[in-house]
């Protein structure tokens, strides 16, 4: 370690033992004075207490449940006796929570639909896949999805969409909602910032109208009021109406986010594009939007995450999304009272999707950052 450099008498040694490493960090940050020591000890004890409690509840006192040899059914009695996390409840109700009242014989279909959705999302996350075929793939996937869920063709039995529920429904409402809302929001944002008075007025009117009312109201209007205006005999599917309501709602919110991005682009960029002779759409598509959308990634993903969770409001018009099915699972008299298990289960599911979106957006920001890469 101790080495003498040429000519000078400087002795190189490592930093003092107590100033680095875990011990050094603890000493410098948690135990550097008497009050800090007291606070640290109390907080560490609290953390330990919570941790032990969680381990007990989730693992040591938890009940996996055993199937009755005769009937093959799980029972809630053991759970009630133990008081830990009731995995038996999740095992019993998993199917209902994930897929709603979809016929149990056809369970594979919503399962495949979820797989299709998730893989489509994963493929779309890869920048190398941002080519025209991706759009075609989405349209094709939506058709396959519809056939898979609805059936009635190709030997698949027909399942009315009143029986759809759980994860496929949540993914459908949110992913399709956002995929359609996003391009619409760009058009709205461009309209709102454009020089054409008519386009501007329509976009401002739409955005302010939609933003001014709660999503629940829009859903109610879509499900209750809208059919009243249709001529008798014509009905539009409830799910479709809710889907359209979500698309329009998300588009209005996203439009304002995109507009913020557009306004952050220096006028010099517009002028440079103009002076090179680019037309309006070329200018927007090639110069302005790539930059505007890049800086809007954090608020865009913020809105995405918000809407992913807000789709649970469709419960109010009688659609059973993930939250709806979790509540439905609790109505079984034999399994009444397992609120914690039910809500924790869907909370974990929601968290996985939202955390993925958040991480992906961070990754994307890093990849797209060209400004300071020296």
């Amino acid at each position, binding site marked *: 370690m101790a080495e003498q450099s040429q000519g000078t008498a400087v002795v190189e040694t490592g930093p003092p033992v107590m100033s680095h490493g875990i011990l050094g960090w603890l000493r410098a940050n948690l135990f550097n004075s008497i009050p800090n020591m007291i606070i640290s000890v109390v907080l560490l004890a609290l953390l330990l207490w919570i941790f032990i409690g969680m381990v007990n509840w989730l693992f040591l006192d938890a009940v996996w449940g055993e199937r009755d040899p005769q009937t093959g059914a799980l029972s809630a009695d053991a759970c009630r006796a133990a008081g830990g996390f009731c995995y038996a409840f999740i095992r019993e109700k998993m199917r209902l929570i994930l897929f709603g009242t979809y016929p149990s014989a056809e369970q594979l279909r919503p399962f495949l639909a979820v797989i299709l959705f998730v893989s489509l999302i994963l493929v779309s996350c890869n920048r190398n896949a941002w080519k025209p075929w991706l759009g075609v793939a989405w349209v094709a996937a939506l058709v396959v999805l519809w056939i898979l869920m609805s059936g009635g063709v190709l030997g698949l039995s027909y399942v009315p969409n009143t029986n759809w529920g759980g994860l496929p429904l949540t993914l459908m409402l949110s992913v399709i909602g956002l995929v359609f809302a996003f391009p619409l929001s760009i058009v709205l944002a461009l309209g709102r910032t454009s020089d054409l008075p008519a386009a501007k007025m329509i976009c401002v009117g739409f955005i302010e109208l939609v933003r001014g009312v709660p999503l629940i109201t829009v859903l109610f209007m879509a499900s209750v009021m809208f059919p009243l205006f249709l001529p008798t005999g014509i009905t539009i599917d409830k799910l479709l109406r809710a889907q359209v309501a979500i698309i329009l709602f998300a588009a209005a919110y996203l439009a304002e986010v995109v507009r913020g991005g557009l306004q952050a682009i220096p006028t*010099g960029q517009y*002028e440079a594009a*103009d*002076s*090179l002779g680019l037309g309006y759409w*070329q200018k927007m598509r090639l110069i302005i939007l790539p*930059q505007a959308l890049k800086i809007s990634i954090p608020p865009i993903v913020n809105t995405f995450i918000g809407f992913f969770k807000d789709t649970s409001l469709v419960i109010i018009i009688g659609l059973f999304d993930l939250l709806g099915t979790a509540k439905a699972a609790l109505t079984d008299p034999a399994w009444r009272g397992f609120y914690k298990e039910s809500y924790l289960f869907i909370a974990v599911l929601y968290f996985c999707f939202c955390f993925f979106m958040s991480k992906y957006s961070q990754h994307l920001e890093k990849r*797209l950052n*060209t*400004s300071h890469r020296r």
Partner: protein
Amino acid sequence: MTDAAIAATAEEPVINIQSMHKWYGEFHVLKDIDLSVDKGEVLVICGPSGSGKSTLIRCINRLEEYQKGLITVDGIALNNDVKNIDAIRREVGMVFQSFNLFPHLTVLQNLTLAPIWVRKTPKKEAEEAAMYFLERVKIPEQAEKYPGQLSGGQQQRVAIARSLCMRPKIMLFDEPTSALDPEMIKEVLDTMIELAHEGMTMLCVTHEMGFARTVANRVLFMDGGEIIEQNEPEEFFLNPQSERTKLFLSQILSH
């Protein structure tokens, strides 16, 4: 076409501005501008800040609208007709004080974008042309970098090359060296001098009087939205006519 324009020269001036006025709201920013620029002429426009010199050249490619009079560029009348505006912008290149390169594209993409999308040049051809112009401004090795990785002087040379890739007939320079560190000004000016020697029609808003002396055919002094005087560089610097020009020259040449 008015009689005055026809009488002016046998060869049509490439830019012709006739009694042009511009207002920002109530503010009369350009007053009765008459100016004609011949093909291959290098014009330096100077004047105190706020004199309207930038606004004048920005009117020529319609980054600014004018309210009265007429600008004709390369025989095309600059009016509200979008077709005419696009046609003029294809013939007129512009270099900005703050470079305005596209930060999300590489240098090469910055150069090929407009030729590919506006001129419909095949990609390969556009890239070859881009490399040719990068050689001309002496930074071919930076082609794959992003603008943020270059120095100010390099960025401005890329901006000049980007304009040249559109093969413009006229180049407008809006204070191209004002945002640069002193040691980088020379490299940009050298590029501009070379361009002038090749016969490019240039309108330069600049305070680089050395540049004006070296290559300008004519120096134009503006103040308060008016063209106060214009002359050949020798005469302009040695023998300024108006008091305002004298004052301005004494201020900028004193240091």
